[in-house]
């Protein structure tokens, strides 16, 4: 009341003081009234939503937690305890879900690789990490370190890749695909914009081919047909083939996402850079790509997330990703009929990873916002 009165009060010209904005409603009750019951439609929607939550959430919680059984050696044990979820099953197979058939005595190696992955990611994700330059060198070396840890050799006991499984496999495929598809996609996008006809045509052909073919087809090609094309006797690891296919597949999409970002960069940016006599690659690295990639963040993360989830498709060519492990475990007579538990467990794992990526992307977008709108 006071504020509005003040705002309508007369001041001599040029003497009007700056006033606070007219009273924004405060207090939870007022907030609820305005935001949840502001109009009839709004009120109806609020009631409907509340009702839906009421019918779905309590039974779900009941099943998943209150009525759930967490220990036991078979489904019967669970049923004897309670009518809800049988998490004992997951508990029982947990290591299998995480490592697949990776030898038990060697599991410290994937664990160490995971810890080092976090270290390698730190300087990439945050730029105020201490010793960032040194850490970045480690990041570049990480693929080799991780490869050595996981596969062995050079003093470590060799582990064949068909023993990889579960979330370990998801992470190997996902992280490899994510880290190589972005640079490859950027190169393809630049190739597609190149003035050199051969390079441009090749890039377009590649991108269009990748986008025109389902990933499953590529995976089948990787698992079966590639051996026809390769010289006989070459043993080309199946996992490596899958990694290559997944990476290429994502990079085709990535290229188009990045191209969208490139197209949003005004010609003046190129001209300003060129007029300083900076070369093509420096111009791209310092001026164009930082802006284009920033604009493309939502699309890039979208591609990352779908790549990550698509790793589950490898089940089709017989690799044991978490779904494969789940399926195999369900075949056990002791645990039959618990597919809900398995799929919820796997879904939660994927949701956490993907939600994490998406939150990080939001953080990054906000951080890179320099307030330029034109």
């Amino acid at each position, binding site marked *: 009341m006071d504020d509005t009165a003040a705002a309508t009060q007369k001041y001599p010209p040029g003497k009007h003081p700056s006033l606070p904005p007219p009273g924004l409603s405060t207090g939870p009750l007022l907030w609820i009234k305005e935001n949840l019951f502001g109009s009839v439609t709004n009120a109806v929607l609020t009631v409907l939503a509340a009702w839906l939550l009421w019918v779905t959430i309590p039974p779900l919680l009941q099943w998943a937690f209150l009525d759930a059984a967490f220990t036991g050696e078979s489904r019967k044990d669970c049923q004897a305890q309670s009518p809800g979820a049988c998490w004992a099953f997951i508990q029982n197979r947990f290591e299998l879900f995480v490592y697949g058939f990776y030898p038990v005595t060697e599991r410290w190696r994937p664990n160490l690789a995971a810890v080092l992955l976090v270290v390698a990611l730190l300087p990439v994700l945050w730029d105020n990490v201490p010793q960032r330059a040194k850490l970045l060198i480690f990041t570049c070396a990480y693929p080799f370190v991780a490869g050595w840890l996981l596969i062995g050799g050079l003093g470590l006991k060799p582990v064949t890749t068909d023993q990889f499984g579960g979330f370990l496999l998801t992470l190997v495929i996902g992280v490899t695909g994510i880290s190589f598809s972005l640079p490859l996609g950027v190169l393809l996008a630049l190739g597609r914009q190149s003035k050199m006809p051969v390079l441009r045509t090749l890039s377009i052909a590649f991108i269009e081919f990748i986008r025109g073919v389902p990933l499953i087809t590529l995976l089948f090609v990787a698992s079966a047909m590639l051996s026809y094309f390769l010289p006989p006797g070459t043993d080309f690891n199946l996992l490596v083939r899958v990694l290559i296919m997944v990476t290429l597949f994502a990079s085709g999409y990535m290229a188009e996402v990045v191209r969208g970002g490139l197209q949003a960069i*005004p010609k*003046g*940016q190129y*001209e*300003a*850079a*060129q*007029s*300083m*006599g*900076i*070369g093509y690659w*420096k111009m791209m690295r*310092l*001026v164009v790509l*930082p*802006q284009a990639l*920033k604009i493309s963040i939502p699309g890039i993360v979208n591609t990352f997330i779908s790549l990550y989830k698509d790793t589950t498709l490898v089940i089709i060519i017989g690799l044991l990703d978490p779904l494969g492990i789940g399926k195999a475990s369900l075949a056990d007579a002791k645990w039959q009929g618990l597919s809900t538990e398995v799929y919820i467990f796997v879904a939660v794992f994927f949701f956490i990873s993907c939600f994490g990526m998406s939150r990080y992307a939001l953080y990054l977008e906000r951080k*890179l916002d*320099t*307030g*330029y*709108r*034109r």
Partner: protein
Amino acid sequence: MGDTAKLMRSSNDSIIQIIEMHKWYGQFHVLKNINLTVKRKERIVVCGPSGSGKSTMIRCINRLEEHQQGQIIVDGIELTDDLKNIDAIRREVGMVFQHFNLFPHLTVLENCTLGPIWVRQTPKREAEEIAMSYLARVKIPEQARKFPGQLSGGQQQRVAIARSLCMNPKIMLFDEPTSALDPEMIKEVLDVMIELAGTGMTMLVVTHEMGFAKTVADRVIFMDGGEIIEQNEPHAFFGNPQNDRTKLFLSQILAH
């Protein structure tokens, strides 16, 4: 051709030579037989109606546009397809654009040090010192840590001028540097340009600011339909235009 180039270099007082230069956009003959010699430290204003080819002409000088016929020789180097030559010339020729074209993802200071650090291999500390001195010269040292998006148009254009100057160019090209600015900001940019002219910089300025032309220019060039129609020192150019098209243009532009 090599002989001509050498000859040009020896005539030391001319820094830009455009000889019988033609340019087409597809079928459209946009620049017709342009002949222009710019002496060191000369200040030239280019004017003419919209679409007459002013921007295209000065953009040919640093190869943002390619000419198809004739010769352009800048500081003794002829502009050909040779990328080395092009980059060598671009290092010596600064350009200021109508829409500033600052790099929005970099701070003002980083905008100014990008060229020196990555093109001239100046150490970062030194580049920053030079940048700060130029930012002081365009009177916005206090904005160094801000992003371009946080500055007014006039401030942005002054940063753009400072950014070009940080490359220590021999020639500065201006393409309508004040056309995108509100009237009260035009003066602050023109003041910086007048000060720059006082330092003996070779300047080629496309502008409709006739006051600037009268006070600063050694020569005013009038273009129409892709040709240089008339050129003269400002007093004679404005006082006694020869060509009818020049007269018409001046009467229109001075009527405002």
